């Protein structure tokens, strides 16, 4: 099997050529179907997140019926301790979680990628200094540091995002720098350099595109963890203040009712798991699609 396929050395080619190549090759295999379903599901979640205000049957912060109504046709996931519709709150919570995760990943990729690109292209002492800083950040426990940062800034969703973004970049800096270093030794970069390309052009046009596939794969495998970490911080009371529909905080506040009205704390927890699961599945799918097993 393997010999029949055309040879493509790992970690070469831009994102586009790789996806096209892989998809063309995978079209015949059935394994790719699961991957595509997962990615499709994630796209659907993203679209649902945009449309949440239209989809939610009730206002998330207003009383919709009796307190502690069991899940029924009327309230699909039941109501909470003051009678708010849990489904509506969960939908808004999913939207907050998902957008928050995307924001943090985007900032991590931008900050880390920028540092990695500069370090890998410049080399010498700049590389040394930047990578030592990265190593020191990598050597500290991110989630714990994030808790300390939010606690110092004061709890709010914005501060939580800042705190997690501060600890979420070093990994990307390592990856991009590694890819850039490996690419710099390749003939096409040498050719560009001989053709008189400047440092900035070399970095942006000839090195950065090659580092994108590895970064995309890492980021997509990382989103699930990020969803869980943000939910933990929200559970600990480090998110938006009380009535805001955040999944982790809903679990924490509903915990007292676990043994009697189980749906109050369980439903938001299941929503976190669903989001993390789809993100992880899609992450695996993207990795397979880009051929970075």
């Amino acid at each position, binding site marked *: 099997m393997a010999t029949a396929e055309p040879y493509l050395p790992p970690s070469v080619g831009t994102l586009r050529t790789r996806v096209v190549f892989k998809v063309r090759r995978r079209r015949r295999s059935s394994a790719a179907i*699961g991957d595509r379903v997962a990615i499709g599901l994630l796209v659907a979640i993203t679209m649902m997140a945009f449309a949440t205000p239209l989809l939610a049957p009730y206002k998330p912060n207003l009383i919709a019926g009796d307190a502690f109504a069991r899940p029924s046709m009327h309230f699909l996931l039941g109501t909470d301790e003051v009678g708010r519709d849990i489904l509506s709150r969960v939908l808004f919570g999913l939207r907050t979680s998902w957008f928050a995760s995307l924001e943090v990943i985007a900032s991590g990729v931008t900050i880390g990628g920028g540092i990695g690109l500069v370090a890998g292209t410049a080399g010498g002492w700049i590389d040394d200094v930047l990578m030592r800083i990265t190593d020191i950040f990598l050597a*500290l426990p991110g989630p714990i540091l994030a808790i300390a940062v939010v606690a*110092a800034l004061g709890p709010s969703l914005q501060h939580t995002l800042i705190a997690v973004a501060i600890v979420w970049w070093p990994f990307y800096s390592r990856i991009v720098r590694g890819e850039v270093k490996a690419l710099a030794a390749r003939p096409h970069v040498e050719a560009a350099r001989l053709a008189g390309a400047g440092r900035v052009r070399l970095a942006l046009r000839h090195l950065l595109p090659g580092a994108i596939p590895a970064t995309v794969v890492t980021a997509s495998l990382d989103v699930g963890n990020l969803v869980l970490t943000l*939910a933990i911080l929200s559970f600990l009371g480090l998110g938006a203040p009380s009535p805001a529909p955040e999944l982790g905080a809903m679990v924490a506040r509903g915990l007292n009712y676990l043994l009697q009205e189980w749906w109050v704390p369980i439903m938001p927890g299941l929503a976190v798991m669903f989001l993390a699961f789809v993100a992880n599945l899609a992450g695996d799918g993207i990795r397979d699609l880009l051929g970075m097993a």
Partner: protein
Amino acid sequence: MAGLLLRRLGAMVLVLLFLVVVVFSLERISPTDPVHSFLGANASKAAIAAERHKLGYDRPIVVQYVSYVRDLLRGNLQMSLRTRRPVATDLVAYLPATAELALFSLVLAAVLGGILGVTTAARFKGAGLFRFLTLSGASAPQFLLAELGILLFYRRLHWLPATGRSSLANAPRGPTRFITVDTLLHGNIHGFTDAIGHLILPGLCIALIPAVSIGRVLRSSLVSTMRTDYVRTARSKGLREVVVLWRHAMRNSIGPALSMGGLQVGLMFAGVVVVEEIFGWPGIGLYTYQAIPRSDFPAIAGITLVLGAGYVLVNTAVDILQAVADPRIAL
């Protein structure tokens, strides 16, 4: 080996000093003024100034940092704004419970991860279903696992307790302050099994995600090791597959799993905080959970320093262990 040890320990000291810098600067930028919180809103200007002077907040920042590090080395961590006791005293009181739970979870994660990695390294039918299950395991937030565990094993089956470390009225309080060890030392078998029972649910909730990560990494490195020439040679000598796996492949494959285990400790600590609150486990996590809504930053600073130092120590140990397992590694 000696060079490696020295380099790793040197790097560790550097990272710890940086951790202190981070916590120190967070304390300075924090908008809650510790003097105000400690004395209350009605304190007179003179009392505030006196307290500021006593705590050294009127001195230059560098002097403050130096005395901060000096205090730390003496084990002095300021006063908690909530409990009004020194943070160090609180941490000493809460640390054993957390250490016991964390160690138990770490062992559990290593064992489960090992089993997961080894059993899935061999190809078998239903691997797709298995991938589904491990992915679910990696996606389950600790609070959901804890809730479901309580509903199933406590409420429905009555197998396991849902709160605390022990149901003994007079649980032994020494010498190690690990209830499992202390009950054994006192020859109290019933107390020991009871303590283990209390550990199982919270331990599993914390261990599941790291176990899945360790298992997946171990699996992929085992699979690539099993394709090497020396494994083929070992097989062609007629060794049984189990022997090949344990004696020949494992040692070369364990490295990535070890470093994954070390990295997972950070997320594990965050899980400890959540799980301790849900199970009413009287440890550092519960202390954190109570400190957050009261903006008790001195307490959170102490927790961050202790857990951060724990993380750095574990990962230094992992690096050294890796070099022991695979002498080709010269970090």
